[in-house]
């Protein structure tokens, strides 16, 4: 009844190609953004902001990056953790070597640096495909983490091997990193930054380059025959994906945790992000957000559920049970909806269109 586009006529190609072509969608997005910007910082306590919303936004960024590569270009990568480490350590070296550099610029530059590393490790993708490539990207994962761990130059010869983000302000007195930073500023900054980057990613996938990625994903030989250069398409996917993942790594180290060591970006981090895009939906920007929310929220839910139910289980057992339930849920999700949460959302919208009639 409410959610119908009847009577909304489009008189230009621009209107027809809009991201949200239906008026109700635009209103809903505007309301959601208003809630995210105004209501949530007022309502949510520091716990919610620090441990749920900030990592959610950081992970969304990483998930968008991996989704560009795996979901849109079809190149399975298990090196996400390594590229996140790249971003974090590049940002650390940049911000300590050039203290007057603006923090946003630091993030973008470290993303650029990671993009170069991504191109380097993406070169094998021109010859290797499928699971062979996935295992080959593990080389990036292990090599990069080893490099940041072994050479003390990367952490400015700190004896513990931990890097701590120096205090930096977005502008004036609004500190984003360091001890003076408040959760509200972190959240609002991330919200703005990630939203802009997500919008960019969305538009990228709707453009010529995004379509060439999808052609490569669907069948690379056929794509080559219709005139898409696999070299350019694959390497650009690796570069842009690594750019996003690198920035998310820098955000992780600087905004979310504040101090981090190389081993925090181990293989489990890669799997975590991969789970996000699979659960959320391959080839969907919205899915990256949904998947990130799911994977961030679920462990918190699982570890609090027994206590809330009044059960007293030892911490060790809880962590094992968490593993079990996590694995079982992943399998359950894949069986029920292999196309992810984004697909469920789409089905929901289709149903809503016809509501209250069955068809």
């Amino acid at each position, binding site marked *: 009844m409410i959610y119908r586009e009847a009577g909304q006529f489009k008189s230009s190609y621009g209107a027809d190609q809009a991201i949200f072509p239906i008026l109700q969608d635009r209103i809903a997005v505007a309301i959601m953004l208003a809630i995210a910007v105004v209501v949530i910082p007022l309502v949510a306590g520091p716990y919610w902001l620090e441990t749920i919303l900030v990592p959610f936004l950081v992970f969304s960024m990483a998930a968008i990056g991996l989704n560009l590569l*795996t979901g849109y270009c079809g190149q*399975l990568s298990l090196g996400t953790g390594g590229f996140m480490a790249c971003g974090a350590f590049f940002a650390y070296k940049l911000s300590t070597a050039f203290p007057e550099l603006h923090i946003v610029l630091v993030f973008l530059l470290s993303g650029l640096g990671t993009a170069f590393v991504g191109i380097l490790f993406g070169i*094998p993708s021109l*010859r*290797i*495909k*499928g*699971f*062979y490539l*996935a*295992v*080959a990207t*593990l*080389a990036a994962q*292990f*090599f990069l*983490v*080893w490099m940041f761990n*072994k*050479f003390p130059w990367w952490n400015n010869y700190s004896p513990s091997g931990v890097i701590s983000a120096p205090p930096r302000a977005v502008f004036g007195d609004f500190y984003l990193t360091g001890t003076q930073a408040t959760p509200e500023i972190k959240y609002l900054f991330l919200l703005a930054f990630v939203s802009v980057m997500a919008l960019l990613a969305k538009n990228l996938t709707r453009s010529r380059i995004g379509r060439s990625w999808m052609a490569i994903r669907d*069948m690379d*030989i*056929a794509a080559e*025959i219709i005139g898409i250069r696999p070299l350019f398409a694959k390497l650009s996917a690796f570069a842009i994906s690594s750019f996003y993942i690198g920035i998310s790594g820098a955000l992780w180290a600087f905004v979310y945790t504040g101090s981090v060591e190389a081993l925090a970006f181990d*293989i489990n981090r890669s*799997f975590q992000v*991969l*789970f996000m895009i*699979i659960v959320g939906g*391959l080839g969907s920007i919205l899915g990256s957000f949904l998947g990130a929310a799911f994977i961030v929220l679920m462990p918190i839910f699982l570890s609090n559920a027994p206590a809330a139910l009044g059960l007293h289980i030892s911490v*060790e*057992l809880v962590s*094992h*049970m*968490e*593993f*079990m*339930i*996590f*694995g*079982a*849920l*992943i*399998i359950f999700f*894949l*069986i029920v909806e*292999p196309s992810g949460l984004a697909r469920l959302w789409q089905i929901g919208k289709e149903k809503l269109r016809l509501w209250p009639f069955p068809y």
Partner: protein
Amino acid sequence: MPIRTISIWMTGVPLAIAAIGFFFSFLASLSPSFYFTWPYFLEVLSAGLLQGVMYSLVALGFVLIFKASSVFNFAQGSMVLFAALTMVGLIEMGLHWTLAFVVTAAVMVLLAIVIERVVLRPMVNQPHIIMFMATIGIFYFLDGFGQTIWGSNVKVLDIGIPKDPIFVLTGLVEGGMLVNSFDLVAAIVGAVLVAVLAVFFQYTRIGRALRAVADDHQAAQSVGIPLKTIWVVVWSVAGIVALVAGIMWGGKAGVQFTLALIALKALPVLILGGFTSIPGAIVGGLIIGAGEQVAEVFLGSLVGGAIQDWFAYMLALVVLLFRPQGLFGEKIIERV
């Protein structure tokens, strides 16, 4: 394998080893800090080869499943852990190890049936990446399940394999070569396992059916081979291979959570040898084991050590650039 391939390998491998040895002795003549003697080199090499057998044992399970169902089974590592944990648990309950072995094998068969029923059957015809993710789900589940039942303490799995270092080839090399007898036993067990599998695949009815399925799913199904049964059989065989690997690794390093992560070491073995080749898993394991040991001992100190973490992957990556299907994998033919 054709005789030509075998003869190429028979001549190529000693030549390659000699070439690497001469390269190192050349480096040693350049700088005095670079320690190199031939007996030491051979000792490191043999230790690496024996380590490689252990990798092969894990990689074997991957290959079996990939051949029969094109599923890239990431859970092989956690199957190794689960099998080892179950076996240790049963021994601690007072069973003799042979009995425990039989019971654990039965558990692994049961596990295969459950996996086929619950995970594989509802997901037929899904893209490979989705199946791969499902096996990561199994990986997490088995990890948690095994440790929920049997606890997460480091356990000792001892079935009476001697662990003393022994000297071999004392006549050939001055002072002999130091080899761990446990590794030797592991190598023998690995060889026996491969021989048994080869006979099983070559001469039994089920083995022929398995090869048919590996060759072409649809054709196999159309001549009446029950695909579902075959999947259960192949996951069971992979489970039993995991059990043998678990006993060997558990006896060597203790049964603990990190055992599940040896799967990560088996992956470069796989891509080096090719996902679809059993000899590939063996040769790949030997190359990776020997390569990473030699690199760690002779080159690791030059760049800061602990290069074992990634050397295997880099080695596999370089090989892949020249042979995208691995050393023994089936040639990839692509059509539009």
